[in-house]
């Protein structure tokens, strides 16, 4: 078992697990990883559980199972995936790194470097965000959108898309989001939790608590008073249901 204390200052440890891989691919992967780690890159270590930084998926996965894994992956805390297969993968999913078989060492090393960079960025992002203390904090903390998520994250959930759009103009607490979206509180809680876990939203510290950016002194924006009911009328005319 690798501990962070065993690493040089700039080194990181990356845990991985594998599924549906051929014996040949696993042997090649482990050989390349031992050479890779010896060259000053991240140190990779194998785990039996799936609670790892990188999940390696081989060619023996069924396509239905692959689709399920991809969907769960999009909402699953930024876990990277190394796909060693020919299955179609959305190119805008930043967590999936694909090597098409037959697996070759040079191609694999290139992907390992990309995965290492991705994990370093994820960890830096998490370190920059105030520590997330779990469910209790979720009830009171204010969240800011820091990047528009890839389409895979939404999995076709229009409520999540609407909530992301709301969060793009205003930092919100769970209470505010529930009120604004008129969606069930549990769904809003799930949205904020998954957005934060995947690194697309961050907690706002008390020093940044201003929920809206200050309006410019020479604002071109229309006067906000008098907008009551306007958006409902626009929705009615366009045939859009109210939010």
């Amino acid at each position: 078992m690798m501990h962070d204390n065993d690493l040089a200052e700039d080194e990181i440890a990356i845990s991985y697990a594998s599924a549906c891989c051929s014996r040949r691919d696993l042997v090649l992967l482990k050989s390349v990883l031992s050479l890779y780690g010896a060259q000053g890159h991240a140190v990779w270590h194998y785990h039996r559980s799936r609670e790892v930084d990188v999940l390696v998926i081989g060619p023996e996965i069924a396509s239905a199972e692959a689709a399920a894994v991809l969907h769960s992956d999009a909402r699953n805390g930024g876990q990277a995936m190394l796909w060693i297969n020919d299955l179609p993968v959305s190119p805008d999913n930043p967590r999936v790194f694909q090597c098409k078989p037959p697996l070759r060492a040079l191609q694999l090393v290139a992907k390992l470097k990309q995965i290492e960079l991705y994990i370093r960025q994820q960890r830096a992002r998490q370190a920059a965000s105030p520590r997330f203390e779990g469910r209790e904090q979720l009830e009171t903390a204010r969240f800011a959108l820091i990047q528009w998520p890839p389409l895979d994250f939404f999995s076709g959930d229009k409520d999540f898309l609407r909530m992301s759009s709301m969060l793009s103009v205003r930092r919100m607490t769970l209470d505010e989001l529930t009120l604004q979206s008129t969606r069930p509180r549990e769904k809003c809680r799930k949205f904020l939790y998954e957005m934060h876990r995947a690194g697309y939203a961050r907690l706002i510290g008390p020093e940044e608590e201003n929920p809206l950016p200050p309006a410019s002194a020479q604002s071109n924006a229309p006067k906000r008073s008098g907008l009551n009911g306007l958006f409902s009328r626009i929705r009615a005319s366009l045939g859009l249901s109210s939010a």
Partner: protein
Amino acid sequence: MIEHKILFTGTVGAGKTTAIQAISEIPPVCTDVLSSDPTIGKEKTTVALDYGEISLGKTERLRLYGTPGQQRFAFMWKILAQGALGLVILVDHSRPDPLRDLMIYLDNFKTLIQESACVVVICKMDESHPPLLEDFTQAMKQKQMVYPVIPADVRDKEQVLWILELLLVQMETRQ
């Protein structure tokens, strides 16, 4: 008559006229002329603006404006942006440098975006060619402008309505 407006902007050929046409209650008023620029890939292009409208009652209407696409008409963009409720930026993914195109509109409409609502729509998206959607969202993040980025076919009325839905929820949230 009380009037409000939503602006559609983007590169030449991205689909501003088409998007307005998809939802306007009146036949859109277009100021297209024969194009003298062979690089833009269509015979006619908008030189002043496109205009459509949606009635909100007897005394109120929502105007839909499409800006001229070419950057030499940027002076028009600022005039049209005055008082707009929100902005839809259409980016033509088939052009040589769509990321740069997006940056031009983000820069020119920065004030409007920060004060109202914005949705970035990637049209004619070809996922087998870069830039990917992730590249657009990353580029916007670098500019600290985090707004919806979605691929869409603006010939489809339902997809244009979905774009407006994402715009509306921002307006309602800002209110």
